[in-house]
Each structure stands twice: as structure tokens, then as C-alpha cells.
């Protein structure tokens, strides 16, 4: 059999025929065709920018529901070793002058201008069209430049072979990983992330997930009406994750 390469054009033509296009015959031999709209729930939402808003005043110091939810959802485990993966962690802050303490989860901040993408020599570290910063492990060579470049210490390196991975989160030895904003859930149309779900389940409701570009969304409304801040805003990275009441 002749070897044929599977390319995008071939695929879209096939899908076009398979999905069935709406066709209107205007005159004999003249047909107006319109592509059927792709399934709305599945895949990348054009024009969206996904983000989180975290209210530190609603985040108790002793709660780590978001961290365990992330660990369960993606199948990573942190036993306290420096080399263990850590997609999200709780950070406790204290103002030395006033003594005010606050607690907040820190994960990949999904920058608009991500330093990890700038430094990646292979293009494995990339930003999706909807603002989610990811590692394409197929092309990651494990050099860890991105880990050095990240101002938020958000990325970790997998030091040991992994077995029993989750289907939705492939992860393996020798590659770098970080919070992927539950990209599989977003593509599925769940409209939330594991950490936000867990935070709501505890009743703290400290985290909001949503589309920063949609002015009607809960997160955009909250950002419009209440003060919020970016971690290391001086770096002008325009973060997807915002905090209030730190």
C-alpha cells in the first residue's frame, strides 16, 4: 500500500464530509455551502483567556484542599523532598511590621508573556491560544531552563519513572511539568478546575475560575469591582492568576 501522510488538510476535508455541511442550491450547478459549527463544549474556545482569582482573606492557613485536589486530579505526589513534583503549594505570608498573616495557593500564573516560553530551546514550553501555559512533553528535553526562568517557582522536574498515570494527565520521567489549569477539563467544557471545585466544596469559596476576556464572567466582574493584585506585578508579565486581600 502507498504510504500516505496524515495531514491537516486531509483531515479537515474528511471531517467536512463526515460532519455534513449545510448546503443550499441557489441555481443548478451553484451551491452555497456553510460549515457546520464545531461542537461548542469540546476544544479550545477562541478569544478566551482563562484565569483564576484567589481571595487570600477567605483562604485559611490550615486548609490545603486545593493542593490535594490537584494531586488527585493529575496523579502527582509530593512527600516533602526537594525533588518531588509540586504543581500547587500553599504559601503563608506575614507582614513583619504589622504582624498580619495571610495564606494563599501559588501555582503557574499563566503569564501573558511567559519567561518559560522565552527561554525554552525546543519550543516545548508554549502558550495556548486561550492563555494556558503548557509543556509539550513530546518535545521537552528536560533541560530545566524554564524552571530557572519562572519567577514563581511553579515548575517541577520529574526525576523518576512514573507508572499508573491518569489518562487525562500523561506525565513521565525527564520532563518538566506544572499546573496546566486542568486543560482537559476546560477542553471538555467543565468550566472549572480541580482546585476551584475543591475550594468550593470546603465552603471557603476563595477561588474563582473563568474567562478574563468575557466581561460578563464572574471573574471579570470581580476584577472590575474589587481591588486585586498580581504577584511580582513589577515584572509586567500580565498574569492569568490574580490575588486579592494579600
Amino acid at each position, binding site marked *: 500500500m502507498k504510504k500516505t501522510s496524515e495531514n491537516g488538510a486531509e483531515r479537515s476535508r474528511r471531517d467536512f464530509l463526515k460532519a455534513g455541511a449545510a448546503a443550499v442550491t441557489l441555481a443548478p450547478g451553484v451551491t452555497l455551502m456553510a460549515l457546520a459549527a464545531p461542537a461548542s463544549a469540546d476544544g479550545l474556545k477562541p478569544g478566551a483567556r482563562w484565569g483564576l482569582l484567589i481571595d487570600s482573606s477567605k483562604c485559611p492557613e490550615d486548609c490545603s484542599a486545593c493542593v490535594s485536589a490537584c494531586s488527585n486530579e493529575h496523579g502527582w505526589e509530593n512527600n516533602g523532598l526537594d525533588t518531588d513534583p509540586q504543581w500547587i503549594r500553599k504559601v503563608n505570608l506575614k507582614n513583619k511590621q504589622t504582624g498580619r498573616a495571610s495564606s494563599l495557593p501559588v501555582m503557574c500564573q499563566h503569564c501573558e508573556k511567559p519567561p518559560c516560553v522565552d527561554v525554552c530551546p525546543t519550543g516545548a514550553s508554549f502558550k495556548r491560544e486561550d492563555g494556558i501555559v503548557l509543556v509539550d*512533553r513530546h518535545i521537552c528535553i528536560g533541560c530545566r531552563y524554564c524552571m530557572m526562568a519562572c519567577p514563581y517557582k511553579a515548575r517541577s522536574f520529574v526525576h523518576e519513572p512514573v507508572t499508573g498515570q491518569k489518562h487525562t494527565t500523561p506525565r513521565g520521567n525527564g520532563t518538566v511539568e506544572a499546573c496546566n489549569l486542568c486543560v482537559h477539563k476546560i477542553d471538555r467544557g467543565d468550566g472549572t478546575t480541580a482546585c476551584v471545585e475543591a475550594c468550593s466544596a470546603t465552603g471557603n469559596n476563595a477561588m474563582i475560575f473563568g474567562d478574563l476576556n468575557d466581561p460578563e464572567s464572574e471573574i471579570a466582574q470581580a476584577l472590575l469591582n474589587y481591588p486585586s493584585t498580581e504577584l511580582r506585578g513589577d515584572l509586567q508579565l500580565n498574569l492569568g492568576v490574580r490575588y486579592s486581600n494579600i
Partner: protein
Amino acid sequence: MIRLLIIGLFALLAAPVMAQDSLFPDIPKATGEAHPEGNEYWRINHPDMLRHDRNLTVHEGDRQIQASISECVTCHAVKGPDAAPVTIESDQHFCRACHDYAAVKIDCFQCHSSVSEDTDQALLLPGQMLGRETELDALRAYLEGASQ
């Protein structure tokens, strides 16, 4: 005399072919619907298709793809003696049947799961099967099989 020679020649030619037949890997049967493009097409093109569609998923978020590794391992699951699907650790695994034969190393399962999504992960861990009757039977069958 010539007839004898011809028969001898045939026997000589047939011998390596027969030997090859027996060496060819025993490819496990799949459970789902057959590939419309045919098995021959997939045998040749599956690396290209997987590579093409993985980029669609990772970079464009398209998860309704044709060549999904998750669907591969679901349809092509091979049940082990303990009734649970075997992982890539086992040489019974669908992918290994040919890849071992062709001596081509697959990296996919360093990151991806090699069993179907609905597989009970607990079943894959030895020692956790005890206390459950049906699985106890499976374990017994497995041990009896191993001792033979």
C-alpha cells in the same frame, strides 16, 4: 528426474516461508469496531497519525481526534490471567506484540497510561486483590497458571 528436482525446489522454497509464518507475532484481537481504513493502513501509518493528532490535542485542545492513544489501549486491551488488562510491562500487551518482534522501542508509555481509562487501578497492583471473591478466583487461576 526433472519432476523430482522441481518438487525438491518447491520444498526448499516453502521451508523458509513456513518458518516465517510461525515467527510472525501473534497479534491480539481488538474489541471495538474495525478500522474503516483497514488494518494494513494502520499498521503502516499509526506513528504518523499519532504524531499528527497529538499536536492537535496538546496545542489546539482538540480531544475528539481519530488517533488517540487512550482509544488505542481501550480497544486493544489484552486481558491477563487475572482478568485485568495487562500493562506495557507485560509482553502480552498489544503494542508490544509487534514492537518486540520488530525491535522498535516505544516511548509513549513512559508518560501515557497503557491501560484503558475505566480500568480499576487497584486491580493492577498485586496484593490489593485479596478479600474480593471474584478476584480471588482470578488470582488462583493466575497462580495455577504460573506454577505449570
